[in-house]
């Protein structure tokens, strides 16, 4: 009558296979990235580790101008919609972290042109956790934390 949904709870140690220019065969320009995938940041096991390796800072400044949110309760821990909005002038990079995932960094976003920050994606969550947003602007890193997103058993509704 019930069942546990989803089981993503442990970190991955995947290594990016750097195949620069592999897309050239498609004739698509521009091809993704000279910029390297921030492997150390995705491997970091702490928030501080992510901050250091992604942005080179020891801590972030709490900000009310950032709104990071997910659902109160995940409908499916394997597919949790999350979003970050921020009203911080000249923001050029954003990161989404899941506090309790063993490797907290889920994704980072780089913005070429300044403007209101609004990004969203869907993530895997193995257990109830807060979400953390980092926003870099003018060399400073700001942060905000969401309410907990509860990951729980399904069924037994009434």
């Amino acid at each position, binding site marked *: 009558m*019930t069942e546990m949904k989803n089981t993503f709870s442990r970190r991955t140690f995947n290594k990016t296979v750097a195949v620069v220019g592999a897309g050239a065969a498609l004739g698509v320009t521009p091809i993704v990235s000279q910029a390297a995938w921030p492997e150390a940041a995705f491997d970091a096991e702490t928030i501080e580790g992510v901050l250091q390796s992604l942005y080179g800072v020891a801590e972030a400044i709490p900000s009310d101008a950032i709104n990071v949110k997910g659902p109160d309760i995940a409908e499916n821990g394997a597919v949790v919609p999350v979003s970050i909005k921020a009203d911080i002038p000249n923001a050029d990079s954003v990161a989404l972290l899941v506090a309790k995932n063993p490797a907290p960094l889920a994704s980072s976003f780089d913005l070429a042109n300044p403007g209101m920050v609004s990004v969203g994606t869907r993530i895997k969550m193995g257990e109830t956790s807060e979400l953390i947003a980092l926003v870099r602007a003018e060399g400073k890193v700001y942060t905000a934390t969401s309410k907990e997103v509860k990951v729980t058993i399904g069924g*037994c509704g009434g």
Partner: protein
Amino acid sequence: MSNHFTRRSLLKLIGFAATGSLVPASLKSFVEQASAADGDALYDLPLQGNCRVMHTTDIHAQLRPVFYREPNVNLGVGEAEGKLPHLVGRSLLEKTQIPVDSPESYAFTNLDFEANAKRYGRTGGLANLKTLMDQLRAQAGGIENTLTMDGGDLWQGSATALWTRGVDMVDASNILGVQLMTGHWEFTYHQEELLKNLSRFKGEFLSQNVRVKEDSLFEDAYFELVEAYGGLGLYDEDIGYAFKPFTTKVIGGRKLAVIGQAFPRTANANPQGFIPDWSFGIREEEMIELIEQIRQDESPDAIILLSHNGMDVDLKLASRVDGIDAIFGGHTHDGIPVPVEVKTPNGGTCLVTNAGTNGKFVGVMDMDIGEGGVRGMQYHLLPIFDDLLEADSEMDAFINNIRQTIYEDSVVESRAENHRVSAIRMGKTYGEILDEKLARSDRTLFRRGNFMGTWDQLICDALKHEYQAQVTLSPGFRWGTSVLKGEWITMEDVMTQTACTYGETYVQDMTGEALMTILESVADNLFDPDPYFQSGGDMVRVGGMDYTIDPSKPLLSRITDAKLDSGEVIDPAKTYRVAGWAVVGDAPDGRLIWDIARDYLLDQRDGEDVIRIQKMNHPTLVGVKTNPGVADYEGKLI
């Protein structure tokens, strides 16, 4: 907003009961006495103000009058402890100033249920409800002064609703004159069936919190589905509204905006396979933005919320969202005779109501709406006493007609292909199938309450027998009616406890650890102190096993002392044979629960046709001895 006249004006009938020393032999004769002096006292409700909102909710497809015992365990945890709706029995009567041993105490509490059931009779029934609604409309000066809303869980809960895939209830709600609705169990038919039913429904379906998933909006298939139903299922592609979030109505000359809120946990509590393209959630921030938009664009004189949040969520929402004058709530099946006044963030007031279940009540909110604001409101939650109302002939004929329908090969009563349709029911009328007498009850059978009910125990016993299981799990659904002690249990009664689109059963070997994790997780869904983190019904019913629970403890530490009926302590490392039903994942292949229950009752009844419950698995409750949300508990309190 000023001058809310929020307190229930005492029914004349009740006033008489409170002051008179005479206890009537039956409500009918009593009312005849009252009528002699007062006219049609109980249901004589002239409109106060200019707008009458009538609200039903959680009818769970009960077309005919029922016995329904209110819970004696409805625990509030955290800030909810000791407050409405978490009061039962005498505590509820005291709080709401209802006399003991009155028709109202029968309607709103479990007190003396058997005796009162015999005295006051059945409640609900849509033919009676229709008569009363028509009367209430007439008293308000006509339908231009009234609004009729249903809060959902209307299309599920009976065999006929299951076999017609909700269509019988859509037609019934059209006869009732339901203008607006939202939903929960409506989403346990396939989403295409829901859209089909909504195209048959003459009113509007509202929900601000049902959104089309982003990936579905990339697929042609979804747009084709929507097109097939005239646009139903996609109200606003940009925002992702699957349905219209709100509507406006001119009632009594004033503009009323009504927002819909479907059950936020629909996709957690039920199989997602039925509704692959939709996502739910409370969406409080979006609600706040919507209210601002409504005020700017529509300038309504009042805003109300038709909600299937459940009362605890409604109470929290009301305290955090400005601009809603009243919430008409459901889901938690709380028949609460008085509205709860909640202070909103900007100092205003929102009245939060909940209109019970099984068609037993109609909520009547009379609103005095001025230009740009509500001047006052008066609320009555009227019990539908079967003995006091004439059945409406149109509805009565409709219901009888449904029961004459032949059960054919086209019926779909399960997700599992091998159980889609039943050979033993084929060719019979619905009425013939449902009137089958199975056994007599050895006690009053009921489900509602936070923990094991007598009906649940019978279902668990049937599963245990079927699968030779050690432990059985039955969902803590809040729906299901009552059977009085000594009465025949019919197939209809069994279906009323079990009819849903995912009634397949399973048996499996499960470790003690896995079993306890399930129980802990479900308990957390019920007893998380933050209502926004609660997600469903009552506690899962556990047969063949006793346990002790402290609702105040955090996740994974509430349940202790779990042991089998044999006395054997549950060992996390050991494996147990566990049977259950209503799986939200892929359908298991075991027989449908109602067939298992039917066979059990027929085979296991004794020489006097009585089915006997050998042992009740009431959990032992810790720390709630003084909690007014529990009274006359049948298990142990420590």
